[in-house]
């Protein structure tokens, strides 16, 4: 991006951050479901779940909950982008001497800020509920890096949804399967407790490697190959989603 594009992206990001600050309910709504899941699993179901690991159940499940938080949060990114397209403000920006990529980047950066705020709320609640970690600063930074990469990859998926949606509901519907994916992973129960084909799927879908990596970082344990599998998935999703998002963006101009 040129200096111009960076400046435009900064101005436009400031604009959509204002939207969030003026309707903070989107950040809170994003955090509500994950917090409810935390309560449900820790105080209702967790007692019956044997993870075979040390530490409390909330330590085990928090990484998956964080991914669910982000997967539901990006629906708002698609929603905000869709509204911009509907209201004509997107066309206004596109017909101005504004670096075109900056219009999308503003939504991506805003998505990062909003989702990290929701994640912070969920971690805060988890700490109140007894989540504990002795993770070093470096481990925390690694967790933050993974979550940022995860948010960015999913945000570009949200951009595709926002650009191609025909209705408001369509703009956010794509996130439902993403929210469910952690349930068929090692996020809540170990994969070895699942029947064969399900366990196979769970072990080979991206969420498991991401969850295992974050869990290991929080527990101050070695991350093994999980981290590379996780990074491989994240980078692949990011590159693909970005490519398709830019392609559908270009198609709009066709």
């Amino acid at each position, binding site marked *: 991006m040129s200096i*111009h594009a960076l*400046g*435009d992206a900064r*101005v*436009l990001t400031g*604009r959509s951050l*204002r*939207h969030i600050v*003026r*309707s903070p309910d989107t950040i809170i709504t994003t955090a509500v479901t994950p917090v409810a899941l935390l309560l449900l699993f820790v105080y209702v179901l967790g007692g019956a779940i044997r993870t075979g690991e040390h530490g409390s159940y909330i330590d085990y499940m928090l990484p998956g909950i964080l991914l669910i938080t982000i997967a539901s949060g990006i629906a708002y990114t698609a929603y905000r982008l869709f509204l911009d397209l509907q*209201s*004509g*403000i997107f*066309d*206004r*920006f*596109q*017909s*101005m*001497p*504004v670096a075109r990529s900056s219009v999308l980047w503003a939504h991506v950066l805003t998505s990062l800020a909003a989702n990290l705020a929701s994640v912070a709320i969920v971690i805060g609640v988890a700490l109140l509920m007894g989540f504990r970690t002795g993770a070093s600063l470096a481990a925390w930074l690694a967790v933050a890096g993974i979550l940022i990469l995860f948010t960015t990859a999913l945000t570009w998926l949200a951009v595709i949804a926002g650009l191609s949606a025909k209705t408001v509901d369509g703009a956010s519907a794509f996130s439902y399967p993403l929210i469910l994916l952690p349930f068929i992973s090692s996020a809540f129960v170990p994969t070895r407790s699942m029947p064969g084909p399900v366990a196979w799927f769970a072990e080979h879908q991206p969420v498991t490697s991401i969850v295992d990596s974050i869990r290991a970082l929080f527990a101050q344990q070695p991350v093994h190959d999980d981290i590379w599998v996780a990074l491989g998935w994240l980078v692949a999703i990011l590159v693909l989603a970005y490519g398709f998002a830019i392609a559908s963006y270009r198609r709009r*101009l*066709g």
Partner: protein
Amino acid sequence: MSAGAAVVTRGIEKSFKGVPVLRGVDLDVDAGSIFALLGSNGAGKTTLVRILSTLLKADAGTAEVNGADVASRSAEVRESISLTGQFAAVDDVLTGRENLVLVARLRHLPDPRGIADELLARFALTEAANRRAGTYSGGMRRRLDIAMSLIGDPPVVFLDEPTTGLDPQARAEVWATVEQLAGRGTTVLLTTQYLDEAEQLADRIAILHEGRILVSGTLAELKRLLPVATVEYVEKQPSLEEVFLALVSGTPDGGRSPGPIPSRKEPR
């Protein structure tokens, strides 16, 4: 292109999913003039405006705005135009002032707040400056929308149905603004379905129908297209409405029975 032309199109074509909307549009808009593109709903006015403002690519043909080709030099085109779309494109969450400051920043102008204050005063929005645009009436939204488009004094302004849905007073305000703009030398290309709007504002009028420009000229030239009365009668100039309906009828979706253009006779 001639030195005095702000917009020139030749053979612009555009289809959506195989359905042709524009089928070879030729247009010449003189710099500093008000040009009205007249057409019924669905004629393709918005499609043409979107092509001229680099939001849509034509399937065929060429278009130049302020001397730059919209396809190959779109960035230059965007430097010299502004678009006021069919529906007011304001940010409802931001206040009126914030909307104006935002556009001034994006146009990389010095003193965005000063520019905003000046426009708020000019468009009688100072009182409402710190209210969210979402709370504005239709007329206020349109005024804010047009004010946003004028930031940076672009030499060519596209107004897509600027008065559709406005009450008569708001409509008169928009008309006054358009006349002011032309007075400053800005080229205004506006689209409208209202014959009286074209008649009132435009230096030149083009009628877009079934994907082509049926006729283009000054109001007087268009009126001359209809034959006037015979000698026994006192002549009555046909109104633009009569010209429009006569030209549009006789074509499949003209809405009127085909037939010879009636000549106007009014006995005295």
